[in-house]
């Protein structure tokens, strides 16, 4: 990994009795780093602390090795893209974009040069004299990005930047923002509550919950090897089950889930009789057409009734009712005819597919 640009060291922040940050330490290098979490998780507070809009109760913020913890925002030299864009309504596109340069007292030729560079980068040519109310949502987004980047900041912060865009535009901007990050080679720190967005865009990510860091790392790592119940249930489309460990057999455990047996890999702290949470991403399950029964060697195999099929194009979600009155969602290639509604089918998954944790881990 390349050099660290931004360091958060042991950050604490309370708002009254609400703990918005509890001992948060994060290092970010020249990468796209996502801060993901549900609302109230403290991710926006972290971003505001980096920006200098909040002062931490404890801990330090370092940018390029310089301690900026007590610097006001306007002396930190960072860029930021705000939620709802927050363009200045009384300034034109160009005035909005060169605002940071104006504040730094840059001369006209520098402003012009930087403006030309950034407006080409974000594809905003020809809108110079427009006012924000004359722009479409996508254009506003580009102006907000340009304003964040124009002064070539050492870090760019993005606060739910795509939350107000429609789906098509969001997909387009996700790719664009990645491109900007590669071109500029500075850290982008990206706050979102949308896991899909975080997974698409980031290199690494951190998941926050109730002011605490749940897990931090490579996005594949987090997705496939979550270390907490929360991360396991939060990322992806996950079936959450709970049951008691009935047996340990051949490096595997067998969990009894309301009368259905589930298999999972053995871990050191597992004991027979322990209640565990059993998380299973829906795409790790295979659905088998009626009549076909897979080999149950090293797999969990269950029968159920195909209650409904939700066709999504590239794949389909199958809702399977089990005999214990629970339901499992399976995402698989859409090979099974919707006409087979209510047919009995088999579903199966490899023993190493689920993520299992002792149940007192506390599920959100």
């Amino acid at each position: 990994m390349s050099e660290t640009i931004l360091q958060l060291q042991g950050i604490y922040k309370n708002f009254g009795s609400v703990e918005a940050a509890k001992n948060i330490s994060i290092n970010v290098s020249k990468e796209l780093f996502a801060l993901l979490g549900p609302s109230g998780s403290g991710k926006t507070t972290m971003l505001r602390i980096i920006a200098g809009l909040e002062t931490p109760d404890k801990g330090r913020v370092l940018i390029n090795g310089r301690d900026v913890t007590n610097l006001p925002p306007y002396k930190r030299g960072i860029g930021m893209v705000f939620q709802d864009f927050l363009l200045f309504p009384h300034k034109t596109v160009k005035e909005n974009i060169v605002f940071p340069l104006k504040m730094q007292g840059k001369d006209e030729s520098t402003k012009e040069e930087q403006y030309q560079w950034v407006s080409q980068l974000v594809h905003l040519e020809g809108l110079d004299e427009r006012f924000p109310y004359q722009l479409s949502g996508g254009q506003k987004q580009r102006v907000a990005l340009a304003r964040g980047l124009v002064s070539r900041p050492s870090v760019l912060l993005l606060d739910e930047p795509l939350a107000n865009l429609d789906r098509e535009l969001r997909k387009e901007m996700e790719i664009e923002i990645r491109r900007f990050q590669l071109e500029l080679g500075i850290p982008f720190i990206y706050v979102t509550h949308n896991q899909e967005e975080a997974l698409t865009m980031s290199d690494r990510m951190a998941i926050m919950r109730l002011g605490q860091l749940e897990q931090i790392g490579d996005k594949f790592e987090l997705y496939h090897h979550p270390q907490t119940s929360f991360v396991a249930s939060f990322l992806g489309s996950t079936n959450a089950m709970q049951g008691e460990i009935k047996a340990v057999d051949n490096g595997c455990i067998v969990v009894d889930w309301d009368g259905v047996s589930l298999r999972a890999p053995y871990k050191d702290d597992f004991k027979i009789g322990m209640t565990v949470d059993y998380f299973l991403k829906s795409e790790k399950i295979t659905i088998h057409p009626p009549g076909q029964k897979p080999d149950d060697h090293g797999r969990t195999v269950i029968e159920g009734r195909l209650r409904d099929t939700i066709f999504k194009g590239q794949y389909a979600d199958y809702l399977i009712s089990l005999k214990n009155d629970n339901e499992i969602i399976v995402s698989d290639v859409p090979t099974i005819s919707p006409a087979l509604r209510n047919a009995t089918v088999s579903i199966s998954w490899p023993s190493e597919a689920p993520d299992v944790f002792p149940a007192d881990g506390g599920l959100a």
Partner: protein
Amino acid sequence: MLFFFVLPLLTTVVISFWRTESYTIIHDWNIDNYVVLLTKHTYLVFLGRSILMATAVTLISLIYSWPIAYFIAYAGGRYKLVLVLLTSAPFFTGIILRVTALQQIFGPIGIINTALINLGLKPINAFMYSNFASGMGLVYLWIPFMILAIYLSLLNFNFDLLEVAKVNGASPIKAFFEVTLPLNWIGTAVGIVLVFVPTLAASITPRFLGGVNGALFGNILAHQFGATGTWALGSAMGVVLFFVSIIAIFLVWKTVDLRRSGFTGGDI
């Protein structure tokens, strides 16, 4: 409304081109009234004084109102409403009763001067019927307008924009002049006009607080309709006053760029 507001004003304009002789109006078109007003030294001095006074009172109100309106809108929280109502409540008492009250404070035998005399000190001359005293009085009378106008504007101001400015390198002062003031300029301009216009025409306050030397244009205007009965000249004065107000409004309006007011901004 048209009938009862515009027509009387037009009548005043018409009469200003007639003349009055021994308390009756003679329908005789002439511009003598204006010639007198614009050439006679005394009238110009009074007009100049009124303009100066109105400018000073407006400036003082403006500078004083901004931090107060800002504080109420920004930090008032759930007490916003009480705080702002408290600034405008005295306005409803009516001019004459408030001037009475003011005389008891800033007047020659107001509490401040009586206290000084009782302590064996010299009374403050500024309170002895002076332009200073009437200026204070006028600020007292009209500052609620300024505060209210700026406050109402700030209510619809998105304070988050200040964070944007700061993150982008603006110091608090720069952020104020780059973002806060321009986006609340219409409200401020309305406040300026609402204070300037009545101050320009003030007659009661200077009469009771300003004394003989503190007389302003409004006083001699009132005089024409009182003792001397020279309505035509008085009307001409009214027209002059009206035009000065219009010019002031126009000048203030010139500083407003609607496109840059943020009003058209919708839901940005």
